[in-house]
């Protein structure tokens, strides 16, 4: 798809043609400069946030498991840019990018990773459990399948209360074999719930490639069994992701039911910090994949619209913001011991 041909294909669902129909992404023309700039800002911020956090983790400032979303910025940002701010998102263990893309602030995210009292969850959550309800980021579940459960339930709440919001569930390709995937897609389909299931197919579930986990490595066609619309999009192309999500969200909001949206991308880093990735993928494969950088692709797509000086300014501002977030986390106090015993039954 990086050859410039169809970036979005509808592969299944009611009325879908047997041979994949191609959607042409909404042109750049339909997007404002402000939106494009914001998309860039978020992608750049996520990229750099992951780089900085990884460095700080190695330095011992933060601790616990760490899953970088580097390389997948196009999916997080493309999807969230297509949402209203009060639409909700659920996520997985690999969720920093989703939180940032949904508008959560870097300071409290960073402080949460540091286990500080000023973190979004007061230090009770950590890297795999960020929540920011104020931004519609309902949170991560690092239990494979948990994201689908929560989003399906949120969509059910919207349906019941005649609320026009839409729920988006981010999940990995590894989630597809889990029973919950099947159950929630079926529920969403029969109840026509306003939910979009976004599978970030980043090539791996830890060390496994999709073809080791299922006979057909393509995921979107699975929608067929549920009578659901299935769409494949090039996840490196943030604009394509944005368009595909826009369509899916509009459909959901209009009562047209759920979509299974597969975004093909590549996981740049090991599964987690410290992963022995050399055991299962050659360095060259990673290097080759990294040459197709969602940020670069975006830069060339907007080159006629946004000046490189403008982008450089955004980059510089993002660096400052990240540094401030780190400083905020650093100077924040750890949670008081009493809070450990509050909030449960």
């Amino acid at each position, binding site marked *: 798809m990086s050859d410039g041909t169809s970036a979005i294909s509808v592969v299944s669902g009611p009325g879908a043609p047997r041979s994949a129909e191609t959607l042409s992404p909404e042109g750049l023309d339909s997007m404002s400069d402000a939106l494009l700039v914001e998309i860039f800002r978020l992608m750049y911020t996520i990229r750099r946030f992951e780089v900085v956090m990884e460095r700080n983790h190695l330095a011992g400032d933060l601790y616990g498991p760490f899953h970088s979303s580097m390389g997948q910025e196009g999916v997080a940002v493309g999807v969230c840019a297509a949402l209203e701010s009060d639409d909700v998102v659920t996520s997985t263990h690999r969720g920093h990018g989703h939180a940032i893309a949904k508008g959560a602030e870097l300071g409290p995210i960073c402080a949460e990773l540091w286990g500080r009292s000023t973190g979004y969850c007061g230090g009770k959550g950590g890297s795999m459990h960020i929540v920011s309800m104020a931004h519609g980021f309902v949170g991560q579940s690092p239990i494979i399948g*948990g994201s689908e459960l*929560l989003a399906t339930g949120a969509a059910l709440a919207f349906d019941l209360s005649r609320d026009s919001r839409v729920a988006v569930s981010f999940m990995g390709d590894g989630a597809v074999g889990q029973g919950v995937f099947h159950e929630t897609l079926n529920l969403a389909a029969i109840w026509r719930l306003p939910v979009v299931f976004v599978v970030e197919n980043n090539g791996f579930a830890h060390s496994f490639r999709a073809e080791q986990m299922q006979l057909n490595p393509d995921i979107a066609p699975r929608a067929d069994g549920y009578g659901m619309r299935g769409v494949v999009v090039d996840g490196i192309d943030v604009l394509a992701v944005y368009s595909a999500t826009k369509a899916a969200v509009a459909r959901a909001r209009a009562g047209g039911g759920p979509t299974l949206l597969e975004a093909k991308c590549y996981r740049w880093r090991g599964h987690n910090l410290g992963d022995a990735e050399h055991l299962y993928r050659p360095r060259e494969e990673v290097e080759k994949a990294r040459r197709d950088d969602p940020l670069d692709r975006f830069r060339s797509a907007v080159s006629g619209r946004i000046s490189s000086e403008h982008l450089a300014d955004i980059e510089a501002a993002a660096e400052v913001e990240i540094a401030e977030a780190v400083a905020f986390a650093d100077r924040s106090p750890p949670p008081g011991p009493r809070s450990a015993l509050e909030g449960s*039954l």
Partner: protein
Amino acid sequence: MTREVTFVEAVREAQAEALADDDRVFIMGQEIGEYGGVFRATQGLAERFGAHRVRDMPIAEQSMLGAGVGAAVMGMRPIVEVMFMDFIACGMDAIVNHAAKMRYMSGDQLRAPMVIRTQGGSGTHHGSQHSQTLESWFLHVPGLAVVMPSVPQDVKGLFKSSVALDHPVLFIEHRALYRTRGMVADPLAPIPLGQGVVRRWGEDVTVAAIGKSVHQALVAARQLEEEGISVEVIDLRSLVPMDVDLVLESVSRTHQLVVAHEAVERGGWAGELISRVVAEGFDELDAPPLRAGSRATPIPFARELETVMICDERLIARRVRECLGLVEYSV
């Protein structure tokens, strides 16, 4: 005013009132809609409140419970019916890893107020996969309330408190109680969770129980009375929170304790109560507190086997006698 109703009518009324009182309440489950529930616990509710709010579910427990959590987090107050308590094993992740932890791990940003209604227990010969009494697992899962009513009035009063709680609640009914009858006040104030009640006053031994076992403890008490033994029977009504103080107070008068439940004795919640009473009231105890629970086997089908294995009034009475040193203790 008071009226007599059956236990299952109380369950139905409790849900109807919750649906009527609060738009955020809805019910999900299998066969609960038009069919009215396999035990008639939701009869007439779909008609009255619509299939929208009394939602039939395909057979998919994990996603039913998980969707309940997601909906609760977004402000709804779901009631989720798990048809047999045994099937809760198909949805444990949604309950344990999600419902119970959302509030705490989100730093109180998320709450999952939902009532998970289920029924279980022996006596109808449903065999080993349809008769279990599994509340003890959930005591061990911080973040969940666990409620087990024994009479219609408590069903209604405790349900009100359960629906209102900003934490998930496991509301467990015993199948064998559904047709029992009892008086219900109308109107009825909510009964707070964590308040046990003395069902019978006595002087020699305290028996603490819950749900169906309360009735069996009362039968045992009447029998023991004929032997000249005066038994006090406490109905805990909820296990989380648990009214340990009421038990301690009673033990400070009787100085002996038996804890009775239908759940398997090994690893069952009687161990929790006994540990608490021993830790906080050791000096009051004149004899070892004993447990009356079911034997450590799966639940057999045949009547003749079930009676050997399941805790009943005879075992409770025996434990009381053992506690008093009238017969020798045997496991």
